[in-house]
């Protein structure tokens, strides 16, 4: 099918679907006055039932925690699939030295950017720990914390280049962290079953409302998600870097690969 035919088909399909879209658009509840009761029930009941102040975390890690477990497994599957495809020919062996992109010039970094990255990375990492630990109290939680932590790791790459990134952010450790996070979540979901209560039932003390420790089981689940997201995305970045670089037989010591 040529490009013109495909475009014609698309336009025809869109014109055919337009009345249906319009019917749905006009039938939806008016903006600003939702009719869904679920969220409002959550808002009303959960601050007292679970002693947490962040309702989004309460939905994610408690009320609909089992769904989040499913999404967490999707993340794990996507990362595993990407790693399997990327490793393909390389296998599990790791080259001793960082490879480099053939034909790409090595750019000397400015001192200022190195300093900013070296100062910024630990601050970002500390911030991600803060976001993860306060997940049940203030806006934030495991997913955001994991993404922030990966940004901190990327700052190391930005400031110090791939060769040092590779030695400072050990790849097997990141894979381990991802598995550990997912395992923590699965254990939190499955262990209550041993006490004959539904999955993800909090058997821990609930803690105090607005306190760092509040929400019982939500705290370890939150940390598990943070670790899994951090490990998953770090593994993805590492595998992409490995795949696009060819190993060098005679690496320059202390190279700063761009």
């Amino acid at each position, binding site marked *: 099918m040529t490009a013109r035919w495909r475009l014609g088909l698309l336009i025809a399909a869109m014109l055919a679907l337009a009345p249906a879209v319009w019917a749905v658009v006009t039938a939806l509840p008016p*903006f600003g006055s939702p009719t869904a009761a679920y969220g409002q029930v959550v808002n009303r009941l959960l601050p007292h039932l679970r002693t947490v102040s962040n309702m989004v975390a309460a939905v994610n890690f408690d009320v609909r925690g089992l769904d*989040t477990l499913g*999404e967490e497994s999707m*993340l794990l599957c996507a990362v595993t699939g990407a790693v399997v495809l990327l490793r393909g020919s390389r296998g599990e062996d790791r080259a001793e030295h960082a490879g480099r992109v053939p034909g790409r010039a090595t750019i000397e970094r400015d001192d200022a950017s190195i300093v900013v990255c070296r100062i910024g990375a630990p601050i970002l990492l500390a911030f991600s720990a803060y976001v993860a630990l306060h997940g049940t109290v203030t806006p934030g939680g495991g997913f955001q914390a994991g993404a922030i932590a990966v940004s901190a790791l990327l700052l190391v790459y930005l400031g110090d280049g791939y060769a040092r990134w590779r030695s400072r952010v050990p790849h097997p450790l990141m894979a381990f962290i991802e598995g550990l996070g997912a395992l923590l979540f699965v254990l939190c979901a499955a262990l209550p079953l041993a006490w004959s209560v539904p999955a993800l039932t909090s058997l821990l003390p609930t803690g105090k409302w607005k306190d760092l420790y509040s929400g019982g089981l939500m705290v370890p689940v939150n940390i598990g998600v943070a670790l899994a997201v951090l490990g998953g995305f770090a593994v*993805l970045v590492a595998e992409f870097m490995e795949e696009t670089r060819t190993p060098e037989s005679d690496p320059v010591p202390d190279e700063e690969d761009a």
Partner: protein
Amino acid sequence: MTLLPWLVTAWLFGIGIYGIVTSRDYVHIIGSLSVCQSSTYVLLLSIGFRWHSGPPIFYEHPPGTASVDPVVHALVLTDIVVGAAVTALLLVIALQVHKRCGTTDPQQLRPLRHTK
């Protein structure tokens, strides 16, 4: 005004589909797919919005204050993270296609053609 969020959703989804259909590059298709996906964010966040309501985080204001729907926020949150991982998976597939066939243009690829 009350129709605007839904129309934006439909438009975002539409231009995403347009990008996918007319694309000449797999990386561009993956980008267009992300545009389609962001239409779901607009839809979910606007469907949970309530006028004169705060965030569903009862820290500064006590429980019982009017606030927006937290369920859709939770959905968008996981959607973004899982979407990023799936995008990475798709990019990996594009990388493998480029490795095997030397091109990322879907027009150049023939189904079931045996490449080395």
